[in-house]
């Protein structure tokens, strides 16, 4: 039996169109997606009509504050939505549902975007609203783009580090960070080294890491299918402060006798953190007897992480790896539109007084009505 996804199609129409609004962190994303009726498949793919993003960037050494991030979203949201509608070549009234990120994320930015969603819904003759879990957005978009049908998902971003697998209509968390998220760890180290935040701190660390060659000794903290990163960050932060602080202290690589550079620190940090990520992913694969991995989330666009994951999966029988590029990996509106539309097609919508956002919203809280495998 498969789920009937066409009970709610507008009379006389052969497709659905959804608008998606994302603003849970420093990216404001607006996307328009189209599903033709019938189950999604290789021959009936979701169609991306537009996918626009604007990122709030802070000066080097500074993180993004909720207040300023919310202000960014507030002051750009109308322009970005207009742009997305023009590019998709649709009018507000063509839309079946307006999807928004309900959590998890930063409170103020989430709230500023949901206000836009509520306003538009009322402006355009009460279009239904659909609240979407941000993580579910990443997972469903990743599956749709790559065609991975039932993968173990590694979700790595600024605020999340989770290893997820589907079972009985929920995406269940098998492993996760016990303290800070991977993206947060990299961003904070970028701030310590005063690496620019443009285009993204993690991207700049990745480029520096490519030039690093000496591995410094860092703690390795895998705990079952979970991992911990705050100790590693504390350790390398201290080292960086000693080396490049007020009284610079030279640290020499034991093997080559050459001095350790900031590039070496970036390289070492990536090597140790990504080894841990790949290991917990492989642990989950072995535990649930799967051989497919899908990487989603902003950190998933890191080439070194993708390469390491590929090397791991090559040693497993019939192993397959799926990843998306930065259009879908990094937070975006289209994934919210896509996951929200799946939800809408199974009759799940939010009344306006049920559209309050929540900063904490676990992946396994969502009932995945559109899958029954």
């Amino acid at each position, binding site marked *: 039996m498969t789920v009937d996804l066409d009970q709610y199609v507008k009379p006389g129409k052969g497709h659905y169109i959804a608008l998606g609004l994302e603003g849970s962190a420093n990216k404001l994303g607006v996307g328009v997606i189209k599903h033709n009726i019938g189950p999604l498949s290789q021959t009936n793919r979701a169609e991306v009509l537009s996918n626009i993003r604007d990122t*709030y960037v*802070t*000066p*080097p*050494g*500074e993180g993004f*504050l909720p*207040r*300023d991030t919310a*202000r*960014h979203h*507030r*002051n*750009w949201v109308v*322009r970005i939505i207009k742009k997305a509608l023009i590019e998709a070549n649709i009018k507000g009234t063509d839309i079946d549902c307006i999807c928004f990120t309900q959590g998890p994320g930063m409170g103020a930015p989430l709230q500023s975007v949901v206000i836009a969603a509520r306003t538009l819904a009322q402006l355009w003759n009460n279009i239904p609203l659909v609240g979407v879990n941000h993580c579910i957005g990443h997972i469903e978009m990743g599956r749709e783009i790559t065609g991975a049908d039932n993968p173990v998902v590694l979700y790595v971003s600024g605020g999340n580090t989770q290893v997820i697998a589907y079972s009985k209509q929920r995406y269940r968390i098998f492993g996760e960070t016990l303290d800070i998220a991977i993206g947060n760890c990299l961003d904070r180290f970028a701030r310590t080294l005063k690496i620019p935040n443009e285009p993204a701190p993690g991207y700049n660390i990745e480029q520096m890491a490519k030039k690093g060659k000496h591995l410094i000794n860092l703690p390795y903290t895998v705990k079952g299918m979970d991992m911990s990163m705050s100790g590693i960050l504390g350790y390398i932060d201290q080292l960086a402060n000693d080396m490049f602080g007020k009284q610079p202290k030279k640290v020499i690589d034991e093997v080559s006798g050459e001095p350790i550079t900031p590039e070496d620190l970036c390289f070492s940090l990536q090597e140790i953190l990504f080894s841990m990520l790949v290991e917990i992913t492989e642990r989950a694969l072995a535990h649930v007897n799967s051989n497919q991995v899908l990487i989603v989330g902003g950190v998933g666009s890191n080439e070194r992480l993708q390469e390491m994951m590929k090397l791991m999966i090559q040693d497993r029988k019939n192993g397959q790896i799926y990843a998306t590029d930065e259009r879908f990996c990094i937070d975006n509106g289209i994934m919210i539109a896509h996951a929200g539309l799946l939800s809408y097609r199974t009759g799940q919508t939010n009344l306006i007084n049920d559209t309050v956002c929540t900063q904490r919203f676990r992946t396994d809280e969502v009932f995945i009505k559109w899958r029954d495998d």
Partner: protein
Amino acid sequence: MSSLIPKATYSAPDLDESKIFTPGDGIHTTDGQTTQISDIVINAGGEDRDKPTEAKDTPLGHLRAELTTLQDQINIFLTERMKQEKNKQSEQEEADIERRILDDGVDEDDSD
């Protein structure tokens, strides 16, 4: 277009009557005083590319500008109330410590 003048009402149990906000006469712009970017960003050498666009000379444009004024009034009012609330609390806490030291014989260093 006088029909588009925004108004906000605030009431609370400890207030005798509701407080009503209106933008009032004067020049209204979208450049609000309480909705600027934080100093941290500017001090760190950042530039503000997220300023709101200027209000157009249309009824909706005027509404946007007047709403910004209204927002300022509300923000200032609420911030002031929060400050008062905080002061009241710390006064109470001080009085409480004093009372505990005097009445219960608690050593000041023991209080957490």
